[in-house]
Every structure is written in C-alpha cells, then in structure tokens.
C-alpha cells in the first residue's frame, strides 16, 4: 500500500539554487539561439512536466515579446482526459499557438498500421506522425523536453541533434559540439531537434516547477484511480488499456511520474499531493522515471535508441 506522505521539505534542500540558475540561463540561451538561427521552429508539447518547463522557459526567453513559434502536440489519441484539459487551458492562458498532429489520422490515412492486442501501444507510431507533421508545416527545428538523464541513449545525444531527410538519427555520426557554439546549419528537408533541458535531471525539473509555480496536469499529484497491475506496472483502467484474462482492477492511491501514451504509461503508488511531497519522493527515488512508468522502455535494452533512430522524440 501507499507510503505516508513525507513532511514538506524546504525549497532548496535538494539542488543548489545556483545550479538551477545555471541550468535556467543555459536553456534560455539555447532556445534563443535556435529560434533565431532557424527559419521555422516548433516546440513539441506533450502536456508532460518536461514540456511544461520547456514552454515556461521559452516564454521567459523572449519576454516581454510573445513566443515567436507555435507548439505542437503529437496526439496519440490515447490520452488522459486531464492532460488534454490542461493543454487546452494552458495554450489559452499563455496565448500560444497550438498545432495538433494526430496519430489517429496517420492510422486512418494508412501511413501507419496499428498494432493489435491488449498490449498494443501507439507510442512507436508517433514517430511517423511527428515526421509527417514537421514536413507538412515546414518546421526546420523542433524543441523537445528530452533529458540526458532519462535513458542511456539520450545520454549520448547532442543539445542540437541533426536529422537527415528521412528524419533519422545516426548516433555514430553526430556533429561535434564544442563549447556553447551551436551549429544549426542544415539543408532543405533535413531538420534539427533541440534539447535545451539536456543537462537537467528529474529533480531539477521539479525544483524549477516549485520555484516558478509552473502549472501541471493534476495526474502528477496523488489521487485515487482504478488500475490494474501488469508486469509490475499500474495501468489505468477505463481508457485504452484492455483487461486481460484474470486481471482484477482495483482502486489505488497513485500519481504519475511521466505523462505519455495512456496505454503504456504506468502510475506509481504515492500519497504525494503537493510539490513539497513530490520533491521529497523524487529525491528519495531508487528507480528511474522511465523504468518505473514506461512499459515501452523496458521491452529491450536498446528500445529508446531504436525508436530514436527512426525519428522518435
């Protein structure tokens, strides 16, 4: 059963505020540089905590001017309702332009074929939808909230990551990236992925959220939900997750550590209902966020590398 929520800690108990200052300045500088050198950038926004921080930073980067580029949500159709509500509310409150790229439309138009079965996920299909949408809108740079501490393949990626005409990442031919002198030169049809949060950890993200009071979807905070336990992961019942024979749904006090496709994103047992509780829980965590909550990354040793080669976030 869930652990009792820890007492609320002081704000800067975990990460030195100077460290967070440095990361903030670095991210803003990267965002400004890419947005100015590239012709038509876009910010990939999933409704998760990393993209919320990224969008918050991007607005600070150009203040008092408006955000000079749109945000794009690659919508798998397998969403948490709270996340879609949050997305729509945020783009309205923050006055940003939203582009939606739909995985369902990619399926309907025959661009991708959906896996079937109770464990089918649309996670991998997103790569095709993403690449199609980048081409359709002529986006030459896509900001992502990816962090090097998430996964061992991400740990290898540059801040500015080159994609060829097919949208592929070649981890063996990455451009050198000396100092902070970013090289955004590309040819037509190629594009860049820019990761301003490369050097942030999960704890840094939560520290930033607490410091700036960044709005988040409610599912990041403790709530009661009907779930089923599968492969050690708690999956929400009622959405795209179909029950398998013998599985018994039950109510549990949970929260989410990541927000992704609802079919493969697991909840964790947690009574952490405030940012202070979450900071304490994150600081004490012994399992990575992807290991704990993403079925797609536990499939094989190089699951993330394989998806990234194909054009994934």
């Amino acid at each position: 059963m869930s652990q009792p929520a820890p007492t609320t800690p002081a704000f800067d108990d975990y990460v030195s505020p100077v460290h967070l200052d440095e990361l903030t300045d670095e991210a803003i500088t990267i965002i400004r540089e890419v947005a100015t050198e590239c012709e038509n950038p876009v910010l990939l926004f999933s409704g998760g905590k990393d993209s919320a921080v990224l969008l918050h930073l991007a607005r600070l980067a150009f203040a008092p001017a408006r955000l000079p580029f749109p945000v794009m949500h690659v919508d798998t159709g397998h969403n948490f309702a709270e996340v879609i509500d949050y997305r729509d509310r945020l783009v309205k409150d923050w006055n940003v332009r939203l582009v939606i790229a739909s995985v369902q439309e990619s399926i309907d138009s025959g661009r991708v074929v959906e896996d079937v079965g109770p464990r089918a996920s649309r996670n991998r299909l997103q790569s095709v939808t993403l690449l199609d949408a980048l081409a359709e809108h002529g986006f030459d740079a896509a900001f992502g909230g990816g962090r090097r501490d998430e996964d061992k393949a991400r740990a290898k990626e540059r801040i500015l990551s080159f994609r060829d005409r097919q949208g592929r990442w070649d981890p063996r031919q990455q451009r050198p990236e000396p100092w902070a002198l970013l090289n955004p030169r590309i040819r037509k049809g190629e594009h860049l992925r820019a990761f301003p949060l490369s050097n942030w950890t999960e704890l840094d993200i939560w520290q930033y959220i607490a410091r700036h009071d960044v709005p988040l979807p409610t599912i990041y905070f403790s709530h009661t939900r009907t779930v089923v336990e599968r492969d050690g992961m708690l999956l929400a019942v009622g959405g795209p997750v179909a029950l398998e024979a013998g599985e018994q749904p039950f109510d549990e006090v949970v929260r989410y550590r990541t927000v992704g496709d609802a079919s493969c994103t697991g909840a964790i047992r947690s009574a952490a209902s405030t940012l202070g509780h979450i900071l304490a829980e994150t600081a004490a965590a012994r399992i990575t966020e992807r290991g704990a909550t993403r079925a797609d990354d536990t499939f094989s040793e190089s699951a993330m590398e394989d998806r990234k080669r194909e054009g994934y976030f």
Partner: protein
Amino acid sequence: MDSSMVGTDLRSASVAPSEPDTAVRTTLRIATAGSVDDGKSTLIGRLLHDTKTVFEDQLKAVEKASRRYGDGETNLALLTDGLRAEREQGITIDVAHRYFTTPLRSFIVADTPGHAQYTRNMVTGASTSDIAIVLVDARHGVVDQTRRHSLIATMLGVEAIVVAVNKMDLVGWDQAEYERISKEVHAFVDGLPHPVPVFSIPMSALLGDNVVATSTNTPWYDGPPLLTFLEQFDASVESLPGARVHVQRVIRPQGGDHADFRGYAGVVAAGTLTIGEPITVLPSGRTTKVSGLHRWGQPVADAGAGHAVVVELADDVDVARGDVLVAGDATHPPEVAEDIVIDVCWMIDQPLLVGTRHWFKHGTRTGHATVTAIEHRYDLVSLEHEPTDELVLNDIGRVHLRLSEPIVADLYRHHAEGGRLILIDAASNTTAGAAMIAAISAWSPEI
C-alpha cells in the same frame, strides 16, 4: 481554479534569480580523458554507483547486460556506454553525459571516448568542462593518448587536470610506479602551450580505491580521494573586467503594453553589467549606456557572467544580431578583426587546405572564413611544430584565416569566450573545427 490545473499563471508569479552566495558551490563540469581501456567509463560508473546515483532498474539492466556480454562481474562501464555498438564492442564511441549531486555540489560528467578515431567526440565533452580527469593505466604508464588528450583538454579551456593513476591493484600498489607516472604527466603538461595545475591520485576505479573513500592500500598517499577533491575544487568564475554581450536577437514586442520596448538578448560573457554603465557597440564603435536589464523576464539591477539577459540601451543606436556590447575598461579590450591566426582541432575526414572556404561562427556572428596559410601542425607527442600544407582528421595546427566580415575578437588566452570559434564544412554543414584565436594580425607567415 480549473480542476485540471495546479499552480498559478506565470503572469502573477514573480521569481527573481537567486542571490549569489559564496557558500554555495557552482556546478562542476568534468570530462574523462585517456586511452582506450584505461578505465574511464568504469571510473564514472564507480562514481555514480558509490554516490548512490545509480537507480535500481539501471543497475539491474547493467547486471543483465554484463552477463550477456560475458563480463564476469557487473561491468560498471555499461552505465555510460549506452549505444548498442558500444556495448557490443566494449568501447566508448561517443560522449555520454551523466549527472550526480552530493550534499556539497552538483556535477555534470562527460565520459569521453579513448580511441583516436573518436577524438572529435572527446573534444565535445572536454570543451565545456572545468576539469579533465586523465586516466593512466599504471601498468602501461603514459601513452600517446594521455598526451594528446592532455593537450586538447588544456587548449579547450579546462582549469585543471587530475591524473588518475588507475589499476594500481595490478601493480601491487607500488608507490614508485605511481610517482613516476605522476611526474611524467606533470612535466608534460607544464610544457604545453596552455599549462594548467595538475593533481594526481592513485586509484582502482574497478575496486573503488580512492574514488569516493580513502583507500587503505595507499598509506603513502596523503591526498584526498577523487570525489572529495572534486567537491572542494574552486572553479573560477571569469571575473575579468569589461562585460561583453554577444547579441543573439533583438527583442521587439509587436503592439500590446510593450510596443516601445527594444532590448537585446544575449549572455553576459565575463564581468558584471550594471544599469547606467557606459557601453560600446562593436564593430560600429557607437557608445551609449545600459538603461535597463532583464533576466528571466524580470527586471534586475545588474547581471553577472553566464546570465541570460535582455539589455535596453539609452540611445537609439543600430544594434543587430552578431554585434557585441562591450562595457567598462577591459584589461585587454577586444579588437575588430578580419584576419586572425587560430589553433584549430580538425574534426572531419576532408583535409583543411590553403584556399578552402568554410563557414565560421564566432559568438553570434556567422560568415565565411578562407584559409590563407597553414603554419604548422603540433606533433601531439613531442609538441614539436611540424611544417605542413594540410591538416587532417584529429590534427591540431596553427592556421591563418581571412573572414568575410569583421568579428569582435579576443585572444583566447585573454578572454576564452571571445577567443573561440567553430568552423563548419560548407558542403556537409557538419562542425569541422574547434578554433582558438592565437593572434590578430595582418597575414604574415613565419619564416
């Protein structure tokens, strides 16, 4: 409040950057260096493991992979060798970045490849680091890669080198062997064009001796273990007088409450910028004053090195991306230059030749650079200057460039940020050279 939202709107939030506190240590950026199999990835794995930074699922995955690749025990190098090709071959191909925090400090670690073939990836990792940890296998002593990586790391701007004399268990914890290697590296670094302080530590990364805890196997060593050293190292913040801002972008809101606002976004490179301070805009040479400063969308009274700011100026002067705002009295004021002499690490297969033209990026200025002369290449072992008419992959040499437009140049040894540039291959658009300005001059070949 809407039920799907937690938190408040940015507009109502007022968050100021932290006040500088001398008691709080800045983040330390570290790069590993040294030859293949000297134990770089194992050392980083050991640091992560012993500082309890490795998560249970990561450790489980590494244990499983160690069995698959036939390693007898858990191979901590697999914590950073994240690409399939690396794990299959047991080598590091590209730099991996890892993060850990102790009660005293946050660390960013770049684990770099040891193979000469992947030197360009080592350059990527070392260029942003404060410290290079150069590993030496105690059985083999100093090898060519030790020298090459020490040269590159010091050229790119690390402030110190830590010589980790590794695998001491395999030489019976022999003090004489340790001291011989340590002295050899000290002597070599002292003779480099950009010498830095050198510290050495005897260790076994595999067994953990002198990594996080002091080893009982080295009673003759009275220095700290590696982690203690790193926690206490003072990374100097550039406190040069004369702040610079390379203008990234003009911030000009369209309409609304800020229709008259005009600010210049960029990073403060060294020094401190204060409201009211006189400013020279280069290359134009026009002068004005700082009338407003903003960081993270909030007004601030002053800004220091590394801060991402927006600067408002008192007069309506012409300022565009690529220009540099220069404040105060610099000890070594920058020069507007079109002809420069550089030391360059060459990182692509196509050779650098006289007459070839590349893109350059210096600060926020981009243009064409034509190679007008190649003085020499450094022999990376003897450090002799060898006359040459080309630089090939992984060469470091001294080259003369003519630029298509003037830059606001510093000598690298005076001012690192204003003294470096990258060269970009015009055909492939890949980053081809990491360059440091050694001289600003009209073209004058050495005789």
